[in-house]
């Protein structure tokens, strides 16, 4: 019982992190794919520049924050507004089976690709059978 109570506040802090920038925040659409040696997370973050991405891994929680440059236009009338523009933010719980020290990321055409390599122990290993 006591262990539960001391652990809880830590989790709550990470999940309810406040956004320090004003404006709306959006949850990017994400694909999570499992390969034999790694998990790949693909996040759609259009309008973000490579320096505007902040990836944080802390206590088993992966946080992605994409800063979007303001694309507001001046001196024009809006005719159609089907989507809003704002920063992207999303968090994930990452299991212990991920080798968190070797997480890599790349960003191209507005898509963030995160490679989360699996820990050695859970990678599939092919075992050769010797004929005797």
């Amino acid at each position: 019982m006591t262990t539960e109570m001391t652990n809880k506040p830590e989790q709550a802090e990470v999940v309810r992190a406040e956004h320090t920038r004003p404006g709306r925040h959006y949850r990017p659409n994400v694909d999570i794919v499992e390969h034999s040696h790694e998990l790949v997370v693909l996040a759609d973050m259009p309008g973000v520049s490579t320096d505007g991405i902040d990836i944080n891994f802390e206590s088993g929680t992966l946080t992605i924050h994409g800063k979007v440059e303001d694309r507001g236009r001046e001196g024009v009338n809006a005719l159609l507004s089907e989507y809003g523009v704002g920063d992207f933010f999303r968090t994930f719980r990452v299991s212990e089976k991920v080798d968190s020290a070797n997480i890599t990321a790349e960003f191209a055409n507005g898509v963030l690709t995160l490679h989360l390599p699996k820990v050695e122990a859970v990678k599939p290993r092919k075992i050769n059978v010797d004929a005797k």
Partner: protein
Amino acid sequence: MLIRAANGSYPIGRLKSEMDRLFGDLYETVASNAPFGLAGGRAFPALNLWEDDKTLYAEAELPGLTMDDLEIYVLGDELTIKGSRQATEGEKVTFHRRERGMGPFSRVLRLPAPVDAERVEATLRDGVLSITLPKEQAAMPRRIEVKG
């Protein structure tokens, strides 16, 4: 179309435009083929449109696409955006989450004024498509001088 632009500045006018657009979108979705065709029946891609006296500006979010994956056509007052997003991951993988749309999409939009197709420009940067559509001479407002 002029009425829409004029009413836009009043809150009531804006509500009317919103409702028009909501219902307009229902018809539009039927016309645009959409395996991207999403919850709420929204067409893909979502578009933002602005105008000033001389030009129309369109913007869409198309992450993961390059200019080669896109086809943009302009004819009179009709703008067509077509393309296809390729899946980057192989066939035999397990998806834990699958939220990003894949495959072909196509959207036709009726613009409020005819544009000069020769001078239309489009750029695609970091997944954001920006199209500048200069209006045709005849569609630009002309200031009428009142002779006293």
